[in-house]
């Protein structure tokens, strides 16, 4: 299978590179407005815009065609006019959809999502109808708008150069978007995170909203023509959301989403070449050669998103699980240490505690085994012939733990009207999270007690010897 994949990838040539470059540029251009849509929680607005720009495109086509048919512009500049009209139409329709949605929502008291749904489906239906009506003068194939023709970008070159037109157009849009972000970063940041503050600073939040819609729509339109709407919708939100899983800073968000867009373009095209033949050959369809790059770039974006969801350094599921597991082990080993200490308090205490007795803590047999292993590794217990023995370091940590426990019980008994048998539960949880400073404070606050409410002696453990700091966060594990 890997061999097959390598063989398929071995056919990579300059065409493939141009395709990847186009997809990457389009994706990066879309990711920039996408970042702001995601942080403003208007992602579905972006999705809606990708539908509503259709009537704008059709209107622009008709307008340019009308100019040409009246003889007002010549055939040479027709394309340029058409493009200009398309951008203008898209921006107008972007603002129009925002305004209409707001109007239906406010005036009609319709819920925001429903208002959006009504407006974008209506505009899209109008666009579809006008395509049909104007089919003779406007050569837009709805399928083409949907799928794009990214596989054939190499055919259409920018006049006078060897660079595909799509690369130039999407690169230009990317540059413009980058410039806009660079110039308006402060305004965008404030109006995205704190519209009220933005208003007090004299930034009109409403115009920022309309501006973002207009820029999004223009970006969408540029990408539509070259890569199709699928890629555009996916690249608008997915890279930004992926970056959102990895970072908290707006700068990082922008940089990472650009990177994710670029990487998903590369991976997507590779997937489009490799995955379908391998999968379909197994189903018995040998003639299948590749899949739509645009679609596969979306899929690659999705895979990257899943990857970030699991492996993100801070918000990733795996790091959360690891963190939780570590905490569980620490609590379990401290419970074992506490048990050690309490057994040692009895008069007939054996120096060596059998493993079976230690495993009777609340955390379960398996966790106590893991905890004992962990303690032995940290040098806090040593295994003897019949069981385990506390080392001096272990003894100190156990004393501190029991000290925290009993101080807390005393504190709770002093300040809250609780029966004695209710004290243990909370202390059993809190003991793991009390640091030396808090212990000292409790000790001072309770005027240096020696016994807890149950009559047990509160051990006095020296604090702060070098190397035996018992704050668990700094303990190497």
């Amino acid at each position: 299978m890997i061999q097959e994949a390598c063989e398929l990838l071995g056919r990579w040539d300059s065409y493939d590179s141009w395709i990847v470059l186009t997809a990457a540029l389009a994706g990066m251009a879309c990711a920039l407005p996408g970042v702001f849509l995601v942080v403003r929680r208007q992602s579905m607005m972006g999705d809606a815009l990708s539908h509503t720009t259709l009537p704008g495109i059709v209107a622009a086509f008709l307008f340019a065609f009308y100019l040409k048919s009246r003889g007002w512009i010549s055939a040479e500049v027709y394309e340029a006019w058409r493009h200009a009209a398309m951008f203008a139409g898209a921006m107008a329709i972007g603002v129009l959809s925002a305004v209409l949605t707001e109007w239906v929502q406010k005036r009609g008291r319709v819920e925001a999502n429903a208002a959006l749904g009504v407006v974008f489906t209506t505009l899209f239906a109008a666009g579809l109808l006008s395509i049909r009506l104007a089919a003779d003068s406007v050569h837009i194939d709805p399928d083409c708008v949907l799928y794009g023709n990214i596989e054939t970008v190499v055919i259409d070159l920018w006049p006078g150069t060897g660079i595909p037109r799509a690369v130039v157009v999407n690169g230009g849009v990317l540059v413009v978007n980058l410039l806009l972000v660079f110039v308006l970063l402060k305004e965008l940041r404030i109006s995205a995170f704190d519209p009220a503050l933005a208003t007090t600073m004299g930034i009109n939040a409403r115009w920022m909203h309309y501006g973002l819609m207009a820029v999004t729509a223009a970006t969408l339109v540029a990408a539509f023509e070259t890569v199709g709407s699928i890629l555009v919708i996916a690249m608008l939100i997915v890279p930004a959301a992926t970056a959102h899983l990895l970072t908290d800073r707006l700068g990082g968000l922008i940089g990472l989403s650009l990177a994710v867009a670029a990487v998903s373009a590369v991976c997507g095209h590779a997937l489009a070449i490799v995955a379908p033949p391998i999968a379909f050959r197994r189903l018995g369809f040998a003639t299948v050669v590749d899949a739509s790059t645009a679609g596969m770039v979306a899929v690659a974006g999705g895979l990257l998103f899943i990857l970030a969801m699991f492996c993100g350094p801070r918000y990733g599921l795996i790091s959360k699980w690891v963190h939780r597991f570590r905490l569980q082990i620490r609590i379990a080993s401290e419970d074992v240490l506490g048990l050690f200490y309490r057994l040692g308090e009895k008069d007939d205490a054996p120096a060596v505690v059998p493993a079976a007795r230690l495993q009777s803590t609340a955390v379960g047999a398996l966790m106590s085994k893991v905890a004992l292993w962990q303690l032995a590794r940290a040098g806090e217990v040593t295994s003897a012939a019949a069981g385990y023995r506390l080392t001096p370091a272990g003894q100190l940590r156990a004393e501190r733990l029991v000290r925290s426990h009993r101080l807390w019980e005393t504190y709770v008994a002093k300040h809250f009207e609780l029966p004695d048998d209710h004290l243990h539960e909370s202390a059993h949880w809190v003991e793991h999270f009390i640091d030396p400073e808090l212990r000292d404070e409790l000790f001072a606050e309770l005027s240096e007690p020696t016994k807890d409410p149950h009559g047990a002696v509160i051990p006095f453990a020296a604090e702060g010897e070098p190397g035996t700091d018992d704050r668990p966060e700094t303990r190497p594990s």
Partner: protein
Amino acid sequence: MRGTQVNRQSAERPPRGEMTAELRPARRLRAAGKGLAGTVPRGVLLAGALLTGGLLTGGLLGAQSHPAWAADSSRSHAGVESTVVGTGTPTAHRSLADLRIEWPDREQLMRVLLLQDYNTRVVLAGTVVLGAAAGFVGVFMLLRRRALLGDVVSHASLPGIAVAFVLMEAGAPGNGKWLPGLLAGAAIAGMLGVLCTKLILRYSRIKEDAAMAIVLSIFFGFGVALLTTIQNMPTGNSAGLNHFIFGKAASMVAQDVYLIGTAALLLGLIVSATAKELRILSFDERFAATQGYPVFGLDTLLMALVTGVTVIGLQSVGLLLVVAMLIVPAAAARFWTNNLSRMTYLAAAIGALSGALGVVASALFPRLAAGAVIVLTGAVLFAASMMVGTRRGLLVRWLNHYRLQHRVGKQHVLRACFELLEHRFERDANLSRDLTEHLVTEDDLLPLRWWTRRRLRRLLARAERDDLLVGVRDGSYRLTRHGADAARKVVRNHRLWEIYLIEHADIAPSRVDRDADDIEHLLGIEVVRELEQLLAEQHPQFPVPPSPHKIEPTTS
């Protein structure tokens, strides 16, 4: 007297089945527990109605067994476009920028309107049933504030269709386009999409809007990638699969309509059977949870219903637009009523109507695609409802607002007159206390409130029309007997409320005037009675208690 009492009683008690969201919280419990029981027989009724509809549909289709039926079915299953709706005979040559619509001739019009074409009847029946089912389910989706969920489901269903096609082709070559199989794949993928949205929401810090956008775009992208791959398959008559994206009502055949009808009937029955639970879920999820309803199960049921509607709408409206069938009729129905069961019927009716009108229009004008026309018809109905809807429509609300403004303005004039005269009485004890004997001029009134001369003139003219004032000569007026009574009443309301605010709400006397200004027009008779009782000891001088603060002409 008795009459007013009866009226008041009936005004206090909300009609049974009134929306719980609009009741006071204390009443919610009762309404939810008791009032909803009334919907169950209605649900059964509705199921009956749907059943009748289904039977009628069957009758309609079976009434004339068409000789071309078998051929028709095989044709469109093979992906060949059926030519009765939506396509027609293409005109040979047209000028390029020609946007004219060809008007149908009389014969064609009659044929379509009288449903003489077998195919029109088939498509019409299919879209009507679909529209009704979509409106029916959409109401709950809308009230649960999950309006765009349908969009996620419809986009997510595309890879399901493609995978189902590939699997069926792999299993039995040539049979890839078996509709029930494709729709089952679509339903599974749609539910999977919703599930993914929920998982992302549950296990990451991504918000709902982004989660929906992510799922729909990735599933859709995957679906498109699969479709393009399928085009390369040797059996690849995949042309028909594209119809699921933009919809092609014309490719519907009687068999499909039976399938859609059965599914819609099933959905309707499920909704009727669980109307009570869905209703509680839509309005107050937490209340439902505390009452022991299986909220998660009900939520999943609602998703399944939405998926069901989406899937049966794929063929005729297309997956890009089917979400409109769910949202638009329900949102339009909301303008007309506050009653949930009425809203459901209305939404079903609007959905069915837009379906029917869309199909008829697209049969009459061959260049109009049915799916888009259906959605646009729905949008027109929505816009009309938004304008003239009797409950929340703009016109009604404007009218109410206008009336209120009118009343408030009138009362402001009256109070200004009263306070002006009162001021004069205070200065000169010898004046007659009859309010109707004294003249007030426009110039006297102008500094009393923040109003422009133009507005004051208009208000005075209106008060004169309402027989509250009599114009004596240019710019001078005198209160009529009727006007004097009204003025006394409105000033009393104002001052009662002011005293109440000072005594009980601890508001500074210098500020009460403005607060009382807002409420004086709205005080009901009961509140006034209560206030009178409450303040009778402190201020026994009826009919009008004195102003608690000094009245001075405001300098505007």
